[in-house]
């Protein structure tokens, strides 16, 4: 068997393992985001949103739905990789992969694929819930699909890097709590940055999540606070930067080898 075929088998094994993990612990991986997002739709979209009125020409519920879908994709693609990879490090069964001839790039890609799978599964679930509350027919389906997929890759890579550096369980909750959540909430999920004073609009432009949320919203509703091209540029820049960093760390053995 050629090395390429062996690598494909190895990658398939890792991705399937990650998928089975997500499905096996579905109460932890799929149900909580579904409940949380349902509450967002009921409270922000339905109860409060009905009093807010329109945003960029759309009902508030319809306006926040793409943002909430992206929020769940971001959180879950990140959370899946950080918990899976750190869990494997903590219990030391990461050694199963490290002693095998599987190249480091495949270990990384396999884990990222697991994060993307969970991010997209949860995103799909939240979309189905959103459809109970509002109409979501993508104006630009390919932009919608590509943006959600690439964003899941970005945050799966970020979760991997977090897991590489983590030494204890506290370390895997610090970034999501103190960095990811604030950036997501301030990333245009609930509002258009045109509502902000000029200074805060400029500050918001430094938040990468703003570009991803708005690009996705453009795919579904056709409106965005930022130019689409810049959003893709930023997403690709993050993917290349984070992939290079994650692979370097893995090859060097940072956090995985003594």
């Amino acid at each position: 068997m050629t090395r390429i075929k062996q690598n494909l088998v190895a990658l398939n094994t890792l991705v399937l393992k990650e998928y089975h993990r997500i499905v096996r612990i579905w109460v932890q991986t799929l149900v909580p985001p579904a409940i949380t997002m349902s509450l967002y739709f009921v409270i922000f979209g339905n109860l409060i949103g009905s009093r807010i009125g329109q945003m960029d020409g759309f009902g508030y519920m319809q306006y926040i739905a793409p943002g909430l879908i992206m929020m769940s994709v971001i959180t879950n693609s990140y959370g899946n990789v950080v918990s899976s990879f750190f869990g494997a490090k903590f219990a030391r069964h990461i050694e199963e992969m490290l002693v095998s001839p599987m190249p480091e790039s495949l270990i990384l890609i396999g884990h990222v694929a697991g994060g993307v799978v969970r991010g997209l599964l949860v995103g799909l679930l939240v979309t189905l819930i959103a459809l109970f509350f509002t109409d979501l027919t993508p104006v630009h389906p390919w932009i919608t699909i590509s943006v959600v997929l690439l964003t899941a890759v970005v945050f799966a890579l970020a979760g991997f890097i977090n897991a590489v550096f983590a030494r204890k369980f506290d370390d895997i909750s610090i970034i999501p709590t103190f960095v990811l959540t604030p950036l997501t909430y301030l990333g245009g999920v609930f509002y258009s940055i045109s509502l902000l004073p000029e200074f805060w609009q400029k500050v918001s432009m430094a938040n990468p999540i703003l570009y991803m949320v708005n690009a996705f919203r453009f795919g579904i509703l056709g409106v965005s606070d930022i130019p689409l091209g810049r959003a893709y540029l930023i997403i690709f820049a993050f993917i290349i930067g984070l992939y290079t960093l994650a692979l370097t760390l893995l090859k060097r053995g940072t956090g995985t080898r003594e």
Partner: protein
Amino acid sequence: MRALQIHGLTKTYGNGVQALKGIDLEVEEGEFCALLGPNGAGKTTAIGIMTSLVNKTAGSVAIFGHDIDQDVIGAKSCLGLVPQEINLNLFEKVQSIVVTQAGYYGIPRRQALERAERYLRELKLWDRRDDIARNLSGGMKRRLMIARALVHEPRLLILDEPTAGVDIEIRRSMWRFLRKINDQGTTIILTTHYLEEAESLCRHVAIIDEGRIIVNDPMSQVLRKLSVETLVFNLAEAVDGVAAIDGYAVRMIDPTTLEADVTSDRGVNGLFAALSERGLRVVSMRNKANRLEELFMRLVDSKEERGEHTAVAGR
């Protein structure tokens, strides 16, 4: 062909501890080699480097000719590891653990399932294949780690204290299994603190102490270095004492048990003759301690007597 070639291997940890101080070790294909040493001697560090779990500081390691710096994929493909610590995914099913490991080595699923069944049956775990690993006993977890290490049929199997904490029955069944796979051609490197295990299984022995190889010879040659053995004799009838026997240090332990230090140049025949002359009938005889254990202790003790144990900085 050499299964393992290590030259000038050095490892200094970030805290300054020098775990390996330039070791050289070669293991022939088909060998069953014991890697022995006290706790902290450097055995697990050496194994960690061989298996790419620890970064080396200097030196070279080659597995069946594949240098771990030049061709780590080739080196890893030849290797199977049973680590000292349990490192199973405890929430995964037994069969799935073995099949997944095969997948990491690029073995297609159908073939992986066949091999998993074969090794789980051989290691008496097939009936537990659908249990999650957490529900296995300690001995079963160790056998599962052996099955996992063998599923890609490595040419070199490294076992780091595989029988630690395992009861004697399971330990002996593991010995039989290891002998069998060694007879089938798998080269084995075994570290253990049960020196009876090493003496019984291994044909070659390397002793590592404070990061240096202090013995590296065939087992028979190593045991010949044991110049004095202490033998214990059980006597048929109780006696009050025994007169001195020329050339042997003899002492009574209790009225029916006698202990004698026998040097290799004198042998045991003269002692038997002397005991017969004194009308003492010996019912049975045994070594007071395992021979390898005795030699091991003497090697370590002689270093302590010479004050060589002070050399490791930072420990």
